[in-house]
C-alpha cells in the first residue's frame, strides 16, 4: 500500500482516539484491527516489505535451506572420485598441475607435496550414476534428486576471508549476507516468524573448529532488521523470547494491551508513524512468543519422520535436529534458513575426523530432501550443501594409506544443490585427475550466488543498495547464472 495513503488513513483514525473518550477496555483484538494494513498484509500470503515489491522474473524457488559445512570438507573423500590417484600414492604433485599457484603458509614451506589418495570407497548411485563415497550412504540414496557441482572455485585461501566471501561477496567484513539481501529484496512471507533464520549445529569431527562470525548472517550496511535471527538450542530459542520468571502470558498480554493503548494515544497526538510501526512490532513479538515454541516443539512429528532424520534428531542442537527444524520453518514460510556446522577443517587425521563429521550430516541432509519431496515442497525449496573452499590432493603432515591430512584448496571444490528449480540427478563441472584444477564448466562462488538469487526471482545485477557512493550488490561486479543446471 502507498505509504502516504496509509498514513492519511491512520491519521483519520486518530479521530477515534482523540474525539471519543478513550476506552481503557479496548482489547488487543480491536487494536490489532486498527493498527492497519501493514500488519495484516502478510495474511494474504504475499510477501511484504521487500524493496522489489515484485520479483524481476518468476521465482522457481520460494525458500532456501542452506547447509553450510564450515571449515571446508574434502571434495576428494566425498564426491570428486579420483581413482587414478591410487597409483600416485606418496608421489609428488607434478609442477605441471600446481602451475606455481599460491599455497597457504601452512604447507608452502613443505619440502614435498606427496599425493594422498582417498582411503574411502566410491560407488556410482542412482540412475544418474553420481559418484559418492561410502561416507555418505544416505546422501547417495537420494543422488537422483541432487545436482553435484564439482567445479566450484574461489580466490580466498583462508577460512575467515573465504567464508566471509561466499556469504557476503567480499573477503572483508562489512557487506550484507546472502540471507539479508533476500530479506531486503523480497520482504517477509509470514507474520509470526523471522524471515531469515540461522542455526549453528553441534559437531563431532575435529574438536578444534574454525570460528563463525555474526557477520556471516549480518546485514552489513543494510538496516539491521534484515540480519539473520539465530534460532538457538540453548536457552531461549530466539533471544529474549521468554517472559521473565513470574510473568505469565496473561500478564504479558495485559501489559501489551496497556502499552498499545498508551502508544496509540501518543500516535494520535504526535503523528509519528514510527509509533504505529512499534505497536505492530510488539504484536509480532507477542505472536512469536507462541509461534516459536510451536515451531521448536517436535512432539507431534510422527515416528517415521523422526526416523528419517536419524537417532540424533531428538537431541537439541544436532545437525539432524536442525534439519528437522529447517523443514518446520520452511513449512511456515520462513524464506531462508541456514544451518552452519563446524569441524571440517581437517589438516591432519582427516579419515577419522571426516567419518565422524559425515555421520553428523549425512542422514539429516538426505532426510530433508526426502521429507520435502513427500510434502511436495522440494520443487520450490532450494537446498544447498557445501563449504567455503576445498582441500588439497597433496598431504599436509604425515602420510600413510590410512591416515593423512589436507590443506586448503580454493581452486576447486564440490557443492550440491537440490530442488528449487535445479536439475536433479546431474553432475556439473569437471576437475583434472588430481582434483586440483577445473577442466570443465567452472562455477565461481559469485556464479553460485547469482544463481541462488535467480531461482528466487532476483536479477543479481539489479538488487542493489547505494552506500558510500556506490551501488553495492551481493555479487560485487561479477557473477553469471549457471543456466546449465536449471530446469
Amino acid at each position, binding site marked *: 500500500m*502507498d*505509504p502516504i495513503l496509509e*498514513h492519511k488513513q491512520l491519521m483519520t483514525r486518530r479521530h477515534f482516539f482523540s474525539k471519543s*473518550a478513550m476506552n*481503557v477496555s479496548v482489547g488487543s483484538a480491536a487494536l490489532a484491527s486498527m493498527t492497519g494494513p501493514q500488519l495484516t498484509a502478510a495474511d494474504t500470503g504475499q510477501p511484504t516489505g521487500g*524493496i522489489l515489491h*515484485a520479483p524481476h522474473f518468476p521465482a522457481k524457488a520460494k525458500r532456501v535451506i542452506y547447509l553450510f559445512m564450515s571449515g571446508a570438507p574434502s571434495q576428494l573423500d566425498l564426491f570428486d572420485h579420483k581413482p587414478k590417484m591410487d597409483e600416485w600414492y606418496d608421489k609428488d604433485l607434478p609442477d605441471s598441475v600446481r602451475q606455481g599457484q599460491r599455497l*597457504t*603458509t*601452512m604447507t608452502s614451506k613443505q619440502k614435498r607435496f606427496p599425493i594422498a589418495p582417498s582411503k574411502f570407497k566410491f560407488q556410482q548411485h542412482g540412475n544418474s550414476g553420481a559418484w559418492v563415497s561410502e561416507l555418505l550412504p544416505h546422501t547417495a540414496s537420494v543422488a537422483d534428486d541432487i545436482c553435484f557441482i564439482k567445479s566450484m572455485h574461489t580466490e580466498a585461501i*583462508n577460512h*575467515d576471508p573465504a567464508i566471509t566471501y561466499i556469504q557476503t561477496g567480499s573477503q*572483508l*567484513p*562489512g557487506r550484507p549476507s546472502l540471507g539479508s539481501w533476500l530479506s531486503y529484496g523480497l520482504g517477509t512471507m509470514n507474520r509470526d516468524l523471522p524471515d531469515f533464520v540461522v542455526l*549453528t549445529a553441534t559437531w563431532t569431527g575435529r574438536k578444534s*573448529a*574454525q570460528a563463525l*562470525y*555474526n557477520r556471516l548472517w549480518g546485514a552489513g550496511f543494510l*538496516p539491521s*532488521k534484515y*540480519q539473520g*535471527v*539465530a534460532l*538457538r538450542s540453548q*536457552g531461549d530459542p*530466539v533471544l*529474549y523470547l*521468554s*517472559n*521473565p*520468571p*513470574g*510473568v505469565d502470558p496473561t*500478564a*504479558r498480554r*495485559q*501489559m501489551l494491551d*496497556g*502499552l498499545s*493503548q*498508551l*502508544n496509540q*494515544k*501518543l500516535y494520535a*497526538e*504526535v*503523528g*509519528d508513524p*514510527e*509509533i504505529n510501526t*512499534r505497536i505492530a*512490532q510488539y504484536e*509480532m*513479538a507477542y505472536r512469536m512468543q507462541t509461534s516459536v515454541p510451536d515451531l521448536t516443539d517436535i512432539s507431534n512429528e510422527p515416528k517415521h519422520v523422526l526416523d528419517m532424520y536419524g537417532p540424533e534428531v531428538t537431541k537439541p542442537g544436532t545437525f539432524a535436529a536442525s534439519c528437522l527444524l529447517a523443514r518446520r520453518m520452511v513449512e511456515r514460510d520462513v524464506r531462508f534458513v541456514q544451518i552452519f556446522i563446524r569441524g571440517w577443517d581437517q589438516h591432519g587425521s582427516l579419515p577419522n575426523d571426516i567419518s565422524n563429521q559425515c555421520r553428523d550430516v549425512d542422514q539429516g541432509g538426505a532426510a530433508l530432501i526426502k521429507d520435502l519431496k513427500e510434502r511436495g515442497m522440494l520443487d520450490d525449496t532450494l537446498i544447498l550443501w557445501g563449504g567455503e573452499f576445498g582441500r588439497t590432493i597433496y598431504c599436509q603432515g604425515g602420510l600413510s594409506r590410512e591416515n593423512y591430512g589436507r590443506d586448503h584448496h580454493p581452486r576447486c571444490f564440490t557443492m550440491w544443490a537440490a530442488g528449487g528449480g535445479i536439475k536433479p540427478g546431474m553432475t556439473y563441472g569437471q576437475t583434472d585427475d588430481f582434483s586440483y584444477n577445473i577442466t570443465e564448466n567452472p562455477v565461481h562462488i559469485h556464479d553460485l550466488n547469482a544463481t541462488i538469487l535467480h531461482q528466487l526471482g532476483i536479477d543479481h545485477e539489479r538488487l542493489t543498495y547505494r*552506500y*558510500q*557512493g*556506490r551501488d553495492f550488490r551481493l555479487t560485487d561486479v561479477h557473477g553469471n547464472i549457471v543456466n546449465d543446471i536449471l530446469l
Partner: protein
Amino acid sequence: MNRFVAHFAIFSFLAFGSLCGSPAIAKEIDFNRDVRRILSDKCFTCHGPDGEQRQAGLRLDQQISAFAKLESGETAIVPGQPGESELVHRITTDDEFTQMPPPESEKQLTAAEIAILKQWISEGGKYQKHWSFITPTRPKVPTSDRAGFVRNPIDHFILKKLQETKLSPNPQASKETLIRRVKLDLTGLPPTIQEIDAFLQDDSPKAYEKVVDRLLSSPRFGEHMARYWLDAARYGDTHGLHLDNERAIWLYREWVIDAFNNNKPFDEFTIEQLAGDLLPNPTVDQKIATGFNRCNVTTSEGGSIAQEYLVRYAVDRVETTSTVFMGMTMGCAVCHDHKYDPFTMTDFYSMFAYYYSLTEKAMDGNALLPPPTMKVPTPEQQQQMEQYSTQIAALQKDIKEKLLAVEYTDPTPDASQELSREDFVWIEDEVPNGANPQGNTPWEFVSVEKKPVFSGKTASTRTAEGLSQHFFTDAKPLLTIGAEDMLFAYVYLDPENPPKEIMLQFNDGSWNHRAVWGDKNAIDWGELGTASRQYLGELPALGKWTRLDVPIAKVGLKAGSKLNGWAFTQFGGTVYWDKAGLNTITPQAGMQFESLARWDAVQRGLKGEGLPGNIANLIKIEPDKRNAAQQNQLKDYFLEKVYKGSQEIFGPLNTQLAALEKSKNELDQQIPSTLIMQDLKEKRQAYVLMRGEYDKPDENRPVEPNVPAFMPPLPEDAPKNRLSLARWLVSAEHPLTSRVTVNRYWQKFFGTGLVKTAEDFGSQGESPSHPELLDWLAVEFRESGWDIKAMQKLIVMSGAYRQSSVVDPQKYTTDPENRLLARGPRFRLDAEMVRDNALYLSDLLIERVGGKSVKPYQPKGLWNAVGYTNSNTANFTQDHGEALYRRSMYTFWKRTSPPPTMSIFDAPSREACTVRRERTNTPMQALALMNDIQFVEAARRYARRIMTEAGETDREKIVWAFRTATSRMPDEKEIQVIQKLLTTYREKYVQNPDQAQALLSVGESPREESLDVQQQAAWTMIANLILNLDETISKG
C-alpha cells in the same frame, strides 16, 4: 512503471522538487544542482573518470573533453547550440543503435532529464567543480524573520527554504520536551524531575542556555560524543578476524572521551589521532590518540599470507580516514579509477603509502597487545616503579662493593679435573626458576617453626582426601639427566594421617614417568609395572624424613633426557616434601662451584645454558681470547652467583634482589598498555596495485605519500608523512573536513544530515538539503577554532532545533523525512542510550568515566556458538557488581559476536568504519525491552524507586513514574490505563506470591527487603510497561 518507482518519484518530487530544482521551473540551470547527478547516474560509467571503461574517447565529467572534437569527428557538446551537439542527438534519437544511454543499459533518461540537459547546453553548458570539492566560503545569511522562531543564523537558512515550499515551522516545543531533547542529545541521558522542575521554574530568558551550558560541561557529554566517534573509529575490544582474541586499546577510548570533555579543538583532535606520534616530542596522550588507526580488524589466521594483510590494513586505514574526514571512501579506486569522482588509482595508492610503512606485523599473533604498543602507568604506578628501581640500584651497588672485597684464589685452576657425583638440588623452598607452579590446590610452603622441614627454610605440604598433587612445568633451565643418575626427594609422612600411596612424577615433555610407594593401585595413572607406573616399595617410615631415590631407567628416562616439570602426588593423608633433585655428575646450569676454571669449562660445555645473555656470550668465547675486562666480568658473576665460598654473603642479597625484581615485574604487568602507531625507519616502497591485488604491484607506477591530485596540494616543504596528511585535512583550504564534520553533528541532533549520505559527499551522494547553511556552519566551525562544544551549542540554540516535533498530515505528506525541518526532530534512542536510559531511571547506572571494558549480562552460549574453540573469547564470563551497570559504551565489544542488545538496536559490528546508523523498528527490539534480564532488573529497581521516592497514593506514584520516564505529566486517560493495570497486577500477585517472588529475583542487584513483595511485583510490571513506552525510548 512499477509501484515502487512511482512512489519513489512522488517522494522525491515532493521532498526535493524544490530543493534540487524542479524541472518544471524554467530558471537558469545550475550544473551542480541540476546536471551533475544526471550525467553521473546515466553517463559516467562509460564516459566518466575511469579511463579503462571509457568509450569513444568521450569524457563527460570534464568540460574540456566534452567540448572537444571526438574520434568520430562529432562534438558532444557545442555550447549554446543543442542542435549541433551530438549529445542531444544521441539522447533524443529513436535509433536503437545510436541511442544513448544504450537501451540495454536500463539507464534511460526521463523527459525531464532530457529537457534539463538541453536547456543547460543552450545556456552555454557551463561546468562547475563538484560542489563538495570547492572550498566553502561563508555565505550571506538570508534575511527572513519570524517572531518566535529565529534564534540564530541557522534559522534564517531554514526559514528561507520553508518559505519557498510554503511550509511554516512548528511552534517551540514545551519546556519539558525541550529539556528532555537537549539532555538526551548532549549527554545521552534523560532529565530528572528535579532538572525539569528547575527549568520550568526558571523564567529568565537565559534559562535554556543555562541548561545547555550545564550539560556541555557534564562528563556525560564526552562519553556521549565519544560513542558516535567510536563507530567511525571502528573501536572494538577484539581483533575482529579469525580467532577474534581480546585486544587492549580501551585507553584510546578514554582519550576520546577526555578530548570531548576538555573540548579539544577538532583540528588538534584530528592531528593527534592521525599522527600524534609524529608531533615534536609527543606526549603520552598524543601517542594514545594514534590508536584511531590501530582499531582496524586484524588477523593471525594460520596459513595467511603476510603481504596480503599488510595491504588490507593499509587499505582499511585509507578508507576509514577518507570516510571520516572527507566523506569519501575512495574504496573504488583500489581496483580502478573512480567511476564517478575524480579519484584515480594513483590518488588512492598515494594515500595508501602513508599507511604502508608501519612497524606493525601483518599477523597480530592473537596477542592482547600486538606491537607497536605503549605502557601508560598511573602516577601512583609510575612512582612505585621508580621506587623499585631505586631499591634495586642500591642493592646492586651494595653487591658490587662487596664483590670488591672478596679475595679469591682458584683452588683447582686446572679445569680438566673431573666432577664427582653429587646431589644437584633443583627444588628447595620454591619451584625452580621460571617454572609455573600448579596443582589441585596451590602449592603450600610451611616453615620450620610449626612443621617438619628437612632443609632450607620451608617444606611443601598437602593434605588430601583422595588423589591430590602439586607440580610445576616450564622450568628453565631444564634439568639435564646423565647416565645412571638417580632422582631424589625427601619426604615426611604424618603419622597421625598417613597417605595410602605417594608418587613422584617427572616431565620431559610427557608426564609418563611415575614412581610410586605404598598401595600400588590407589593412584591408577599409567600402567603398573612399566615406566608409566613403577612400584618402588612400601611407604617409608612414618614421622621421619626419608630420602626417596628413583633410578632414571626405572621411570623411562635416559642420559640426555631433560626435565621441565616435576609432580608430588599422594592419595589421602598429610605429606611433607623437601629438597629434591638429581644425583649426577652431569653439569647443571645453576650448580655451585669452588673453582672458576672448572665452572667456566662446565658452562662452555653447556653453551651457557641458563646464564644471562651477556654472560652466556662471554662464556662462549675461548678463555684465551677474552680480554681482561671480559674475564673480570665473568669472575664477578662467578663470585656473586656461583662460588660456594661467597654464597653466605651474596645468597641473601640475591634473594632480596630477585624479590624486588619480581615485584617490579608484577607491577609492570598491571600497568595498562595500548596500541599505537609507529612508522618504519626505512619506508616500504608503495606501488599502484594492479586490479588492487596485493601480489601485483605495478613496478612502473611507484607512488609516494601524497594527497589526491585534484584537491588542494600539500605545502611544498611538507614532509611525506601522516602529519602532513593530518594538517592538510584541517587546513583552511580543505573543502571537505569541516563540512563533513558539521554534517555529522547535524545528523546527531536531527536524525539526518544536511547531506543525508554522511559517508558520501561525492557525486553519487545526495546533494545537501541546505547547501548555504552547510557551508555557513562549516566556515563557522573552522573559524571558531574548530570549537566542538560551541558548534553543539549553536545547533541546539537554534529555533529549528527547538521546534515541537508534532507532525500534521500536510507536513508529513510534503516532507516525510523532515528534511526541510518544519518540525523538530523525533526518533528512537540509539542502542546504548536505550540501555543507559533504563539503568539511569532505575538508579543502577554507575557514573564513572573510563576504564577497561566490562561484561554485563548476556544470554549464555552466544560467543561459544561462533568462537574459534581456542580463542580467548570463545567463552563469555559475565562480570558482577558495578560492571553490570556501567554505561553501554564500556561494554566489551567482541566484534564477531557483538553485545546482542546493541546489535538488536542497530549498533554496527565495529568491523568497519560507520558514520551513520540505520534506525529500525523490529519485534526483536520489543522482546529485548520486555524480557532481557537487564531491562527486567531495571523495572524491578524502578519499582523500588516508585515505591520509595514518589508520593503516597497510587496516583502520585503513577504520575511520578510516568513523568520520570517520559519527562512529561500523564493525562487522565493515561493515568486510568495504568491504574487499571496496577489493580490487575496487584490481584494477580497477591494470589500468586511465588510468581511475585520469582519476578523480584531477576538480576543480581539486591532487593529492598522492607518492601512488600506482591506490591513491588505489581509495580515492577508497571515499570516494565513504562520502560517499554515508545515515548520512553524516544526523544520527541
